[in-house]
């Protein structure tokens, strides 16, 4: 078991190169312009991104393609696809091909991924269904409560994400607020925690603002005259919503979907706290592979698969909003 690995030699080289480049640029621009070039101010950020984003990504790719002793291998990806393949190999050496062939494909990793995608999809869909009307309400200039609602959505975000999730425990647990209420009404304790619904509830609760605010922003930017123009041309309020407001808020919706879907797929704390380990999601799997199994190579492979999936979904979403008008990351 290996908790901390030494970095490969080339990562040090890359960091050194970055630092050298930074110093060289500063020296050069000071000499040539007798002052500091404006683009130079970007260098710390570029450097930051190289060290803390680009380099870790390269490291993950590197680890996922090597084994514990640093040899190139695709074994980690095979383990993702078939978690029993190592056992089968070992059995083949001991008991022969026939017995080894009886070991079925281990589908834990793939199943967890599919389950995570499904949960993320559900969470995104629920957030969209709840969030769009909320955003509509908040952006409506005739609604005096709109501004209040904006604040109400922001306040919980000031509190720590973990704290908010733990707070749900005290509501949902057997001796929690809801169950005490039910008990006093004679409806008995109901199992509210440690199931899929509780996890979904926690996810929707935590990620809903990320759906509401991009949509709210794009609705807020809409010229109210467009709604009047639609009414003027014969649209009743529902048709105005369907023919003008909704099509024009697509960038916000896409941005919202991105910002909910991505953290939903990778979430790992909520299922552990509210799901009680009964429902493992891909984020939990990656976390436990790194921290409990200590298998950095397999963990990296799983992370890489996750990353590729996210990149693919981002590029699909990007097609629908080519100008990035939603103001999100997509």
């Amino acid at each position, binding site marked *: 078991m290996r908790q901390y690995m030494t970095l490969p030699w080339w990562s040090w080289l890359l960091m050194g190169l970055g630092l050298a480049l930074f110093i060289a640029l500063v020296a050069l621009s000071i000499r040539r312009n007798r002052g500091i070039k404006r683009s130079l101010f970007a260098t710390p950020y570029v450097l930051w991104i190289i060290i803390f984003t680009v380099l870790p990504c390269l490291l993950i790719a590197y680890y996922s393609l090597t084994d514990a002793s640093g040899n190139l291998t695709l074994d980690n990806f095979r383990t993702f696809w078939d978690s029993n393949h190592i056992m089968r190999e070992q059995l083949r050496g001991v008991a022969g091909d026939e017995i080894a062939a009886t070991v079925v494909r281990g589908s834990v990793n793939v199943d967890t991924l599919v389950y995570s995608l499904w949960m993320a999809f559900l969470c995104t869909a629920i957030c969209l269904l709840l969030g769009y009307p909320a955003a509509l309400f908040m952006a409506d200039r005739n609604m005096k409560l709109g501004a209040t609602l904006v604040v109400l959505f922001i306040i919980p975000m000031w509190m720590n994400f973990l704290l908010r999730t733990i707070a749900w425990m005290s509501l949902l647990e057997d001796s929690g607020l809801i169950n005490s209420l039910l008990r006093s009404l004679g409806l008995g304790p109901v199992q509210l925690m440690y199931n899929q619904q509780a996890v979904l509830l926690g996810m929707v609760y935590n990620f809903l603002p990320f759906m509401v605010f991009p949509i709210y922003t794009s609705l807020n930017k809409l*010229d109210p*005259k*467009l709604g*009047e*123009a*639609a*009414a*003027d*041309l*014969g*649209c*009743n309020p529902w*048709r105005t919503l369907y*023919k*003008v407001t909704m*099509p*024009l808020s697509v960038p916000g919706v896409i941005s919202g979907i991105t910002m909910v879907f991505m953290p939903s797929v990778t979430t790992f704390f909520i299922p552990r706290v509210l799901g009680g380990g009964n429902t493992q999601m891909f984020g939990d799997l990656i976390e436990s592979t790194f921290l409990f199994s200590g298998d950095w190579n397999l963990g990296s492979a799983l992370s890489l698969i996750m990353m590729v999936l996210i990149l693919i979904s981002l590029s699909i979403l990007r097609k629908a909003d080519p100008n990035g008008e939603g103001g999100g990351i997509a």
Partner: protein
Amino acid sequence: MVENEHLIDLNHITKEYDGVTVLDDISLYIRRKEFVTLLGPSGCGKTTTLRIIAGFETPTSGEVLFEGRDIVSLPPYKRRVNTVFQKYALFPHLNVHDNIAFGLKLKKLPRAEIDRRVDAMLDLVNLSGYGKRRVDALSGGQQQRVAIARSLVNEPEVLLLDEPLGALDLKLRKGMQLELKSMQQRLGITFLYVTHDQEEALTMSDTIVVMRDGHILQIGDPKHIYDEPANAFVADFIGESNILRGTMVRDELVHFAGQDFPCVDFGFGEDAPVDVVIRPEDIMLVGEDVGQLTGTIRSVLFKGVHYEMIIDCGAATFKVHSTTMQPQGSRVGLSIVPFNIHIMRPMERPGREG
């Protein structure tokens, strides 16, 4: 041309926002095929009046009759009027064709019929072949014409236009004024036009409604409004004017600028305070010895067609337009024909009812 039948009647319309009165007891009628212009400075209530007719605002009190039926509670999408908005409000997610077809598609017309009518509209506004363009790729003038086409294609009873030419440059504006007017005459549609540009109003309208601070000051055809302004404000707003305080000595004799002048107005009573309005082009420059007034030229400005001179006559200062220039500092005589001296009571509030 203009028919006698009333298409729209506004009866005693009052509109308040949070206790502030923006329209105060407005009464007005619009006849079929009439080109009516609401004219006034910003904040006078002209746009609010238009929005009440369109259905975007509900009057605090009063009634809006459309062909004799009260439509105050009718939502905008059920009214047979269409609006051309100040900044056009074209749908950015639709191309030119789909913008214009918007209203027709709602009526579930057959596709071929929609295409035919949209193409005819594009022809009318000189945008044939622009159907597939994005609206934000068009120039201001083109967007404006798309906005007009989008409204006109629905064949509304009344077209409401809210300062539609405000965002265009002078030359384009002049061209569009003529185009709009000829379009209105050809199609025989009633136009209600809102503007703060008096020249635009004079050029296009059958009837001008001059508004200020939520009141109607005067209603009349352009020539009447220009020649016989109801009060000093209208006179000042429509064209340039010299406005002086004066006293009506008796019928057909008015005292201002320290002298008595013969005029053609009567019925004000004796020694009544009045506003005297004289257009700058109605003051003639004559020899110093033959003028009714004498004065010194303070400044001379070349304005293209004429010179604008400020003449100091001691008791009053006059703005005079003349095609012949007099040098600055020279003494001149001023002469005013009685017909060109307009006498008016300080501020009146006319309506147009029944």
